[in-house]
């Protein structure tokens, strides 16, 4: 997997799933609507500002709360290439991998808004290109790396699941 480079959108700690995608928008089976409302109650301008390939950066416990898979789906369908956070809520973390949205945990970082960031999933590093600072990512279990490499759990099971 080639390194991903993109512009950072930086937010704080404990960004919950209701702020990622409010529950009132999750009752449709049409996922194309999700990007329209991503992070709406946190930053109403985000969806206008975000460009394909950008990187979402956050603090502790990103994705807290609901098990709604529409949260990583909304982020992915808005064009975000990877989410970097100090820590993730566990269901969000698994959901993201399962729908093929890369997520990277770096226990500490000082990445600032609009900095250019490079994420090397293969080598487990995150680099702030504006400051030159490189951060080491937490090692992901092998099974997760395999699922992510296939583009998510659906594709992974289609290939290996013998269903």
């Amino acid at each position, binding site marked *: 997997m080639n390194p991903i480079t993109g512009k950072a959108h930086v937010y704080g700690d*404990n960004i919950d799933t209701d702020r990622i995608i409010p529950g009132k928008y999750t009752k449709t089976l049409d996922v194309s609507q999700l990007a329209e409302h991503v992070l709406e*109650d946190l930053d109403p301008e985000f969806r206008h500002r975000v460009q394909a390939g950008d990187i979402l950066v956050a603090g502790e*416990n990103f994705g807290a709360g609901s098990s709604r898979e529409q949260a990583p789906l909304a982020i992915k369908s808005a064009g975000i290439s990877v989410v970097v956070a100090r820590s993730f809520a566990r269901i969000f973390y698994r*959901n993201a991998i399962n729908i093929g949205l890369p997520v990277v945990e770096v226990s500490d970082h000082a990445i600032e808004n609009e900095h250019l960031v490079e994420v090397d999933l293969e080598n487990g590093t995150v680099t702030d290109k504006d400051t030159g600072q490189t951060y080491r990512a937490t090692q992901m279990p092998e099974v997760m790396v395999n699922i992510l490499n296939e583009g998510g759990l*659906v594709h992974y099971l289609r290939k290996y699941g013998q269903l």
Partner: protein
Amino acid sequence: MSGYTFAEKALARAAGVSSARAGDILDVRPDLMFSHDNSAAIRRIFLEMGAKKIARPDRIAITFDHAVPAPTTKHAQNHAEIREWVKEQGIAHLFEVGRGICHQVISEEVLILPGETILGADSHSTHFGWLGAFGAGVGRTEMAALWATGELWMRVPDSMRIALTGTLTPGVTAKDVSLRILGNYGVEGGIYASVEFAGDTISTLSLDQRAVLPNMMAEFGAKNAYLPPDKAVFDYLDARRTRDYTPLYPDPDAVYAHDYTIDVSQLEPQIALPNQPDNVVNLSEALGEPIQQAFIGTCTNGRLEDIQAAAEVLRGHKVRCRLVVIPASSEVYLAATRAGYIETLIEAGAAIATPGCGPCMGNHLGVPAPNEATISSANRNFKGRMGTPDAPVYLASPYVVAASAVAGKIADPREVLPLSR
């Protein structure tokens, strides 16, 4: 070598291996897998995987609870699709509109037992720790994978011990304890952990109260939560169960990443201020805040004892703001009706609705207008949670919610309750 935690024992059992340690990756075969209104979406992912037949339909439960009775044609279509699917796949357990909230219904039907593992497509699946089971939430794609294969990889979490000591004073409940835990250690305090409760307080709590603790640990970031089951739990289960079980207890020398002790005997009623469940203060610091709506219900606090608490507070009073009460299940609703609590609540001015999740996540049945404040017995008060970002939500026990409904502002139930309590 040190002893084993509950999580290590439970996941080793569910994976069919002799032992496991925190950090191990296991293929877990849950004893029950459940989902709710999201089952139509899960079905689509299941088909996308190329799967045809559900692997273990006898171990699958589906409950209609998130939007019931169907508020729109779209929701109704969604429900219809699920009913058809249940028939086609021979899914063993379907709970219809009106039966109640998944966690409560599965507990009442005793589809899960101590020491067993249950995975649900709902974040509050930590709930089943009340009876000593390993309960964890998964996403839709993982539930589709569980339908297809009957198993799922899981990492054995580190465990944290929370010892509760002492006896709660009247008007103070397990909800207040849960909020205090969040207040003390933060919403990220239990992130990814198996939160294992201990201490002499647990056996003093009714079963309705016990369920609140593991349920609320979802807000703590926990993977699962656990209370050691005792005779009260066994008696409840023995009257209803259809299979045998072996309860699991952590070893006395198990190793915990954190070990906390909380003396609950001095605890006052607690309240979470907007917009995060760990924004918790003593109720006395929030008294007098005006509210426009009060809500009692949800998987956290919609059981019989919660409705009883509301009835005790409301008896002989009229509400000064809107009060919505939604029993967590039809069993709760019926028992509350027979006990006269529903009559008391209606006389006080409450609106009662069909068992289900109600307005908890902003769907229907009592969503606030912008700038209207709600006090709720639910579990989450994230910004926008109840449908609009401008509506502040306070979280508290049913006692506090009911007392606040009487006052039209945040109030202390101990001032309303009969002094004999």
